[in-house]
């Protein structure tokens, strides 16, 4: 079955993709924090950050339409905040605009970070930056099991839809769905046990190998220095 909505563009080739995972985690976290510190109504600052996002999207070769599509995620919050702004005055509208631009920029940076880094690399970067092993391993297993379980779910749903006509009363639907979820849970448990035994038999040593070696090159310090310089200039320099 068709998947592939996760780190979808991480196998493109661009200067951003070539950076080490830790560099990208640190750099983009710094950029997101900087965006959250832009004072409300500072048009110039927002403009330079939008310009930077645009340049990075261009450099990364990720289709801009994809980035725009991801930003639709914040829609429910935007609607609620918009409702609040409609009740307020000009001040509230100004605040809403600041909020939207901040949310949009941060989401853009997050999309850039996750779509220019393969997931295994990202995990190793997190581990090397001090994230607890349980969490990193858990994320790794989640990523590997997810597609198998999604297949399982889609097959179960198809089987259910084949066996029934229309919808029954809510209580019966709930019971069916509960049984489906329960057996999905049991199958997940059993699959986890089996897989773990098989991994042990093959010499699993509590770590996952990754494709690209995580070494710093001259590009990494250049990127970090550029990001720092950009943030300092954006805040300190008046046009």
């Amino acid at each position: 079955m068709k998947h592939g909505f996760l780190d979808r563009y991480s196998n493109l080739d661009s200067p951003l993709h070539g950076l080490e995972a830790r560099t990208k985690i640190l750099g983009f976290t710094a950029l997101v924090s900087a965006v959250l510190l832009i004072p409300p109504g500072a048009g110039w600052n927002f403009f330079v950050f939008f310009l930077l996002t645009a340049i990075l999207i261009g450099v990364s070769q990720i289709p801009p339409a994809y980035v725009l599509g991801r930003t639709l995620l914040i829609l429910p919050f935007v609607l609620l905040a918009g409702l609040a702004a409609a009740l307020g005055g000009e001040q509230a509208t100004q605040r809403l605009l600041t909020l939207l631009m901040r949310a949009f920029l941060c989401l853009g940076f997050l999309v850039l970070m996750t779509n220019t880094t393969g997931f295994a690399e990202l995990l190793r970067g997190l581990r090397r930056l001090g994230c607890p092993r349980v969490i990193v391993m858990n994320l790794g297993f989640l990523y590997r099991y997810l597609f198998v379980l999604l297949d399982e779910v889609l097959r179960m749903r198809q089987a259910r839809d084949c066996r029934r006509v229309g919808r029954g009363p809510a209580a019966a639907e709930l019971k069916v769905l509960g049984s489906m979820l329960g057996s999905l849970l049991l199958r997940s448990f059993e699959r986890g046990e089996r897989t773990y035994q098989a991994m042990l038999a093959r010499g699993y040593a509590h770590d996952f190998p990754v494709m690209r070696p995580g070494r710093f090159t001259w590009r990494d310090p250049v990127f970090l220095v550029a990001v720092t310089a950009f943030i300092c200039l954006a805040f300190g320099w008046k046009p």
Partner: protein
Amino acid sequence: MHIPDGFLANRIAVLLNVVSAGSVFFAARRHSYDAAARAIPLMGVLSAFVFAAQLLNFPVFGGTSGHLVGGALLGILLGPIAGFLCMATVVIAQALFMQDGGLVALGANIFNIGAVPVFSGYAVHRLLARERKTGMRAVTAGFAAGWISMMLPAVSCSLQLSISNAIPLAVGLPAMAGYHAIIGIAEGGLTAAVISFLARVRPELLKEGASVRIGIADWAGALLLVAVPFGIFVLGAGSDLPDPLETVLEAVLGPAGERGTATVMPASGRLLEYMGLAVFIIGVMAAAWLAVRLGRGHGHRQ
């Protein structure tokens, strides 16, 4: 429910990052004492289960549909510590895979979607069902745990947003609590249905979960985890506390009025100017794309 970046005031986001990082580290430490290493692959598969289970939609009322969120279920099945670690993993994965929820807001999301539902669901189930894990009483307690585990995060989320001055409580609380009160019925029903299914098919699985011993330190930790942020919310709600990060920034760069705010942006008017800027930004993006593209000659590494 996943709060994006930009909606929370910085002091709230930083506070919740500290709280969540602390509780994740504590739980990870506590868990590695509790469980053998074999529990890690099992937790991973259960995190993936939470992800996959969200594909099974259930129609609630008039067009809206609910799906299992799973916080209460994991808390009941695995105990609060392992359940919290699983849900925290799911929230981190949702931020990294799907950009669902922000990067600096990650602490707030782990708190709202990980800690609050798992701990509250576990506590409610424990209080109502006592030691029983099967039978009618456990199933009813499962419903209550599922419903509460949807309501409390909604309340906590709308509180955070209103203290951050993003969405006033008068708008946010009725909208979020009302929506989740309805979705919570589906969550409660599904939690109860899964528990009754497991009790019928594999009762020993539920008994295994019961053997997780929770000491007084865990309850104290859980209480602090909930009490500290809520206390600070309540205290911070009225007063106008200075933002720690902005204080640092002002010490380094000077007061906000003097840096970069010369061109204050009006909310309306000057439409043509804004459109011009947008066209300029898109042009720069296209130029950067083309430069990299031409410099390389081919797109995919494969």
